[in-house]
């Protein structure tokens, strides 16, 4: 065992692989952060649509969620990788393909969190808001969503952790994230144990920090108070 290989390639692994500065269009964070924001926005829309009273809004969103929750992410990435060039007639960069695949896939999971969060708001809140004369849209924005968001935070952060770990799968289409960067270094240095252990520790630090945050949040907020 010789961990000098990690020290020698530290800047490539961290700057290029993890953050995304460098000659390749890559980076775990550069993929994960926009995917979290966009996936959450799309997921909120889909989650709201699932609670709609209109069947032609509810049904497609239900199919969307059930479909993407029943298919492996690897499969979805390959769909975008092979189908987008066939549809557009030209290939897209890995970054665009990976980002689209993650946003579309993770939105299905975010949608379920948003739906559960909204349903966790007590019925009495809706009745009280209606009684004060609020229409459905302002009620959603000013009464339901702020409370729902509070209830959602642990599940949301947990999903962020899942998404961060999932971004390692972007390496299968050649996107240079932390995992791919370790593969590239390993092809040259043949030090798999040290390199994969090192990136495992990096992923671990990020995920563990976030999961500690969830635990703290759950401890400080009373689970019975809504």
């Amino acid at each position, binding site marked *: 065992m010789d961990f000098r290989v990690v020290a020698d390639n530290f800047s490539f692994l961290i700057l290029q692989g993890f953050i995304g500065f460098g000659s390749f269009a890559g980076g775990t964070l550069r993929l994960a952060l926009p995917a979290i924001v966009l996936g959450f926005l799309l997921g909120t829309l889909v989650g709201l649509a699932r609670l709609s009273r209109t069947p032609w809004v509810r049904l497609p969103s239900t199919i969307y969620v059930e479909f993407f929750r029943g298919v*492996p992410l690897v*499969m979805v990435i390959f769909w975008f990788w092979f189908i987008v060039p*066939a549809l557009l007639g030209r290939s897209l960069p890995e970054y665009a393909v990976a980002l689209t695949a993650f946003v579309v896939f993770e939105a299905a999971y975010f949608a379920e969190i948003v739906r559960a969060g909204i349903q966790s708001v007590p019925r009495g809140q809706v009745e009280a808001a209606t009684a004060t004369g609020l229409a459905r849209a302002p009620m959603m924005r000013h009464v339901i969503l702020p409370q729902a968001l509070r209830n959602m935070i642990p599940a949301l952060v947990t*999903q962020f952790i899942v998404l961060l770990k999932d971004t390692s*799968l972007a*390496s299968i289409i050649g996107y240079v994230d932390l995992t791919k960067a*370790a593969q590239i270094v390993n092809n040259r240095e043949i030090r798999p*144990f040290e390199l*994969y252990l090192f990136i495992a520790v990096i992923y671990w630090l990020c995920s563990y920090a976030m999961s500690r945050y969830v635990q703290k949040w759950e401890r400080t907020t009373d689970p019975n108070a809504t």
Partner: protein
Amino acid sequence: MTYQFSWTVLWSGQTGAWLLQGILVTLQISVLGWLAAVALGIISGAFRTVPIAVLRWLAVCYVEFFRNVPLLVWMFFWYFGMPPLLPEAMREWLLDHGAEFWAAVCALGVYHGARFSEVIRAGILSIPKTQFEAAVSTGLTVLQAYRLIIVPIALRLIVPPATNETLNLLKNSSVALTIGVAELTFQTRQIETYTAKAFEALAAGTIIYLALCLAIATIMSRVERRVAIPGMIVRGQSSEF
């Protein structure tokens, strides 16, 4: 550009056999990985709730370390990272006996074992504490109380989140293609490579995954109805990650 659909590529020539082979391998690594994951999950999940600090600490280390690292990294680690550390003879034997298959089973088992552990812990914690106290006061040791009373009850309570986790395991088995296991996703890619019919190949793979998930969900809901203890059920977030 127009795309010519040709669904017959899915059953003409070898491709049908490839798909069947892929389903078989996916089921094999999933079933073996599931057995390992459930065993590890029960043991470490039970350890996290026992009144013995060393065992609790060991289980926390296992769960927190393994579930916070991507499955893909574990696949690489078990397949590329571990063999160089093994004795020569063992490495040779592994390479002759499908090292990638066993690396995939290991990775799935250990990673999902950590996730099952959380599900089982939640199940055990939802059992009233008096149940354990009553078991111990009748003269059972802690081990016997867990083996005969606590774990059997917990397993009956956690069927819904365990179903969720089982489906995750099945879907995650597709990650094994990265280390060259010829499972379903691998085979759909192979069909794509040979026939250049990406749409048909991916559609076939997707539908098979959906069908497998549906089948598992149906079986598990039967199991759930049969083993449910009236008035006690564990649902909730703990299964998601």
